[in-house]
């Protein structure tokens, strides 16, 4: 019985371990693909990047980008290739154009509008506060209350 156990325990030793293979033949190209793929949108599952998506189209597009990298095309050329076919929507960082001006400037405009409104509201409130003069009677009452407080300490 004991020898059987020993034999069983030895079985894993038969699996000859190999060194982990790199994920791609060319790590530099793969790094470029990764950097590009997070900037590009998968058109099937629209809120995922090309890097995240498992959709068949995303796989195809990654293959296409990989081939373009192998052909030594620049990042800009690769992005242009995709924009030509799929439009600006493929970019996660929209381009600066007339039609995207509001998109880029909108948040800042909102911030300025909000800040202006806040300043105006605060100023208006300031004006509403009128200095009130205390009467003689009130002054004595204040003095009395303060001294009472001091005595209590």
């Amino acid at each position, binding site marked *: 019985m004991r020898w059987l156990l020993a034999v069983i325990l030895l079985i894993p030793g038969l699996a000859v371990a190999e060194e982990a293979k790199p994920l791609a033949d060319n790590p530099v190209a793969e790094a470029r693909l990764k950097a590009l793929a997070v900037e590009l949108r998968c058109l099937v599952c629209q809120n995922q990047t090309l890097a995240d998506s498992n959709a068949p189209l995303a796989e*195809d597009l990654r293959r*296409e980008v990989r081939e373009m990298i192998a052909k030594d095309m620049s990042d800009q050329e690769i992005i242009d290739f995709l*924009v030509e*076919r*799929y*439009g*600006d929507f493929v970019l996660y960082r929209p381009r600066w154009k007339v039609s995207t001006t509001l998109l880029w400037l909108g948040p800042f405009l909102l911030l300025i509008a909000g800040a202006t409104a806040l300043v105006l509201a605060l100023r208006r409130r300031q004006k509403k506060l009128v200095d009130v003069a205390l009467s003689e009677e009130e002054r004595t009452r204040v003095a009395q209350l303060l001294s009472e407080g001091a005595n209590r300490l």
Partner: protein
Amino acid sequence: MNRFLIPFGVFVVVVGFLAVGLTLNPRELPSPLVGRPAPDFSLPQLHDQGKVLSSNDLKGKVWLLNFWASWCGGCKEEHPVLIHLAQSGEVPIYGMDYKDTREEALTWLRQWGNPYLVVAVDALGRVGINYGVYGVPETYVIDKAGVIRYKQIGPLREDILQEKILPLVRELQNQ
């Protein structure tokens, strides 16, 4: 009164934008290829693998290019519309069998009918990428000069055919 009118006005405007946004289909992306020359392709035919379908052979006539696949549900949905259009003989329909297996594609056509004049095989989806396809079915109207004039994303419907595609095709054919 005024202090309520301004927020209310803002509210109405925001609701207006959101209401319009709800009626838009985020899947329908405007194609940058409309108005541009259709990408060239030269691919083996589905039925006769020895023969090639080339976009150059189609210059001089108005034609439809329909990307489809046997695995695609929307293609089944639009299929009767295509069959109907093919029977009318108004415009030739060329099929692009997108990322499919030959056997399944042939079975599909045998089972449901074949509206296509010729079917080309885009096994790797490369021609699809050149045409900016991101989901089948997609249909392109291509004019005599080989320029894409219209792109239908998703299944064709009889009303789209009657209201958009056929009037456009007739106009292009008369040019």
